[in-house]
């Protein structure tokens, strides 16, 4: 008799949390379609013919540089996901599969990155990036974000790779696959759910980050969308229509990426491999 009750309680709590988490987003999207006066006078009222005003969107889409900012954000995010997954999975495979000197020490060293915020090294990163002439490039951002996300990626992926039965790798070795082929044809397909998890974890902070774009690529048309929105935030006047419209549209690409990756989060992919 206790079980349905507790299930109900769990769902109630989750539902409440969902409402809480979605509320500001709904507010942003709602108000992005309203006139400036309506945003301030009746912020909680949904858009209606009486207060509807797409001025924010016309401004955002009318701005010739904003599409480039979107593209920059997408490039940086996708690039970071790609390199984080590739290098993360490779490092995780090496650390779990091969026994070599300093193996444990190296794994520990890599996991330190999870605990130390990369922003503490901002000054050194700027110096380094300036030295190698990568200021105002997307490459700089991708490199920094990949470094930032690798430790957690390696940590998560190692756990998953360790769960792949040893017999599978040995069967592949008997089948004559090179170590690279084992990695790409056996290991990668089997840790797809884990890679999707890592991709989602990686994607959102990178997409939302303001700090490194501000430090490393603040000009030269290489701004990301989070930085691009800042042009509507003035010291004395803020163009709220444009800010809300830009924020609303910024949700779309990351939502699409999330949908793509969440489809990979299928459980039980390895079932049937071994008894």
């Amino acid at each position, binding site marked *: 008799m206790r079980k349905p009750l507790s299930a109900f309680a769990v769902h109630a709590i989750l539902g409440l949390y969902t409402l809480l988490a979605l509320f500001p987003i709904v507010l942003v999207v709602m108000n992005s379609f309203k006139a400036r006066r309506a945003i301030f006078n009746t912020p909680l009222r949904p858009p209606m013919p009486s207060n509807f005003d797409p001025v924010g969107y016309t401004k955002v889409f009318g701005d010739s540089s904003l599409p480039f900012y979107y593209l920059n954000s997408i490039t940086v995010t996708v690039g970071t996901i790609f390199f984080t997954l590739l290098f993360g999975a490779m490092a995780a495979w090496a650390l779990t599969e091969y026994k070599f000197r300093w193996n444990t020490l190296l794994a520990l060293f890599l996991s330190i990155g999870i605990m130390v915020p990369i922003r503490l090294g901002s000054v050194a990163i700027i110096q380094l990036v300036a030295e190698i002439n990568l200021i105002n490039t997307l490459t700089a951002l991708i490199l920094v974000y990949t470094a930032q996300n690798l430790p957690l990626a390696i940590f998560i992926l190692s756990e998953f790779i360790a769960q792949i*039965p040893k*017999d*599978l790798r*040995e*069967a*592949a*070795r*008997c*089948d*004559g*696959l*090179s170590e690279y*082929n084992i990695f790409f044809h*056996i290991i990668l*397909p*089997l840790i797809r759910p884990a890679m999707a998890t890592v991709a989602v974890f990686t994607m959102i902070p990178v997409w939302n980050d303001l700090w490194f774009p501000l430090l490393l690529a603040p000009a030269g048309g290489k701004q990301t969308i989070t930085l691009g929105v800042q042009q509507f935030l003035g010291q004395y006047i803020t163009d709220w229509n444009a800010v809300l419209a830009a924020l609303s549209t910024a949700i779309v690409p990351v939502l699409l990426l999330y949908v793509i990756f969440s489809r990979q989060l299928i459980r*039980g*992919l*390895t*079932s*049937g*491999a*071994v*008894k």
Partner: protein
Amino acid sequence: MAEVVIENLKKSFGAVEVLKDIDLTVEDGGFVVLVGPSGCGKSTLLRAVAGLEPVSGGTITIGGRKVNDLAPAQREIAMVFQSYALYPHMDVAANMGFGLKFAGTPKAEIAARVGEAARILQLEPLLKRRPRELSGGQRQRVAIGRAIVRKPQVFLFDEPLSNLDAALRINTRVEIAKLHKLLAATIVYVTHDQVEAMTLADKIVVMNQGRIEQQGKPLDLYYRPANLFVAGFIGSPAMNFLPGVVVEGGIDLGENGRLSMALPAAASPGTRITLGIRPEHMRIAETAGLPSLPATVDLVERLGETGFAHLRLATGGMAIAEIRGETGLRTGDKTVLALDPAHLHVFGPDGRRIG
């Protein structure tokens, strides 16, 4: 197919020696079964032949080619794992053809070989299924199929039947025996099940603590075990061991246990020996002039036509004797146990057979 020759093979994990001076020849087309208790090194030996386990010393030759430093794929072996180790993200056909694909075999030939293996193993209707949609027995056949398509010099089986249920195990055992004849394959097979060993092998290799205790034809091992370990390991229920001392003209097994019999010359009076006799070589209550021992029935197990009587001997030990038909034997009965002198095994103080 090829001959496998293993000479002075050694393997240590740190200070622990798991294989000690293994010498073994697997004849071309031979079926060698490695048996032994857990941790005896039989799987390690198989993995060393496969190339999955580096060795510490000695040589392994397959088809006249020394393979010590070759990768598994270059040794022209195929291994069937206890866990099957099928690639879960590929269908049956892809699983079987996977190795060939990476060896650069033309597509048409891969399809032909997979089709041939599928026909032999009756896997044709399952070629498009994923491993998770197969039963245990089907998975096992796919694993064997994956080995067949590669046309290896040597097949290596690592306890392939352990994960199957009893009925399926017997079927698959018969299939493996037929397959061996059909392919004229050289096979090295690891198991801890001595029935598999007895029925499948041309040659059984009994291993214990990293050493080969004895190798030979199944029935040779059964009728002439070289030492106590092999005598106790081969046969079910196990051979009965009766410790005693050699006396003039016979042997003394303890209270009421003086038996007169001819003993080998090596057993001089005063030597501590162990008498071994299998359950089927003992008779209950029919002495007929045979050496016999008084005993009390402890338990009777009936399996139908045959059965086993667990007996407490007057000398203090326990013994199991086979019974046939309806004997009317009950727990607590006092009886006599006759030993067939033609089937007595005598082991010396060091456990070696002396007669």
